[in-house]
């Protein structure tokens, strides 16, 4: 790293030194050199002064129309709920959460899954259905997976990658259905 004045480090080393981007060993050597070299002290001063001047360089303020445009972009992506949807009597937040689609949809899916499963174990009930409803297994598993992902720390083994194999093997019990 020695440079222009015989044993003096190159300016690149001082630049990195000012930025605290030198390796520990290099920093020690540079610091030791700095104590005895007025030329390099001047180099470091010049780097620091240049940085300070650059930070002080004037830049125009952000235009108001740009600010409004950006805020509009954020608002359009996630629009605020319309005023009418906010219950005037002020339902508690947890009630609103329970009534939200994110909770109701998985609950409905799991209820359907449970009904299908119970129905399978009780053949007479199936006979009551005038027209048996056939749901593709992928749809049922997809609904289950969506619900499982809403649970905290849902273990990966609850997401059935091979549903037919697991069902055929009899590994799925009623208690597995959440």
């Amino acid at each position, binding site marked *: 790293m020695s440079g222009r004045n015989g044993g003096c480090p190159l300016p690149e080393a001082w*630049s990195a030194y000012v930025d605290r981007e030198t390796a520990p060993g290099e920093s020690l050597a540079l610091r030791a050199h700095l104590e005895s070299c007025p030329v390099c002290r001047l180099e470091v001063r010049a780097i620091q002064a*240049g940085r300070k001047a650059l930070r002080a360089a004037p830049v125009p303020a*952000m235009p108001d129309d740009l600010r409004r445009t950006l805020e509009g972009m954020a608002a359009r992506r996630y629009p605020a709920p319309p005023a009418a949807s906010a219950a005037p009597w002020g339902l508690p937040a947890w009630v609103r959460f329970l009534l939200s689609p994110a909770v109701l949809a998985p609950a409905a899916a799991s209820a359907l899954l449970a009904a299908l499963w119970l129905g399978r174990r009780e053949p007479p009930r199936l006979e009551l259905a005038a027209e048996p409803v056939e749901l593709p297994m992928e749809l049922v598993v997809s609904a289950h997976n969506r619900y499982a992902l809403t649970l905290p720390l849902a273990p990966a083994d609850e997401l059935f990658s091979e549903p037919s194999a697991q069902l055929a093997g009899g590994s799925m019990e009623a208690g597995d259905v959440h």
Partner: protein
Amino acid sequence: MRPNGQGDLFEDFVRDYGERAFHFAYRLCGSADEAKDLVQDAYCRVLSNWEDYDRSRPLNSWFFTILKRLFLDARRHRDACPTVSLDEKTEGADEPLTYADLLPGEEEPLLERLEREESGDLARRAFDRLSVEQRAVLTLCDVEGLGYEAISEVLGIPLGTVRSRVSRARRDLRRYIYRMGRVSLTPGRAHERP
């Protein structure tokens, strides 16, 4: 519905980072109008790729990367359809830094002025003379305070190149400040353009 508070994060990003983004873009372009378009395009890009954002990375680094790419794309497009600006650098403006420019005895008076008085305008004009790559690296390093590793990621260049480019940009900036300062930093002419 705002999935996992992502909407809030984006709104915070717009509110807290818009000004800095605009300043970064302005330093790159040197034009408020161009910077405005650039920031708007960058936020559009961020918004459309929001789901792909890797949360383990700093948001500002990701944003700078997008903004820098858009800027370079725009420049490439502009270069493909060249126009002549009256502010274009003249031939010979980028000659290499001479050893005499760096002599401590020559530099110290200007250095003292830089440390002592308002030198922002001079620095601004000198900064505009740097290349795009130099402006980008100096803005990220000296203004935004990013480390070399983050700069390396944003600009897509090796760590060693960041180190040498930062150093070279600082020396060129100093050279331009020095040359302009000889003209404009005389008593009573502090804000006169060379």
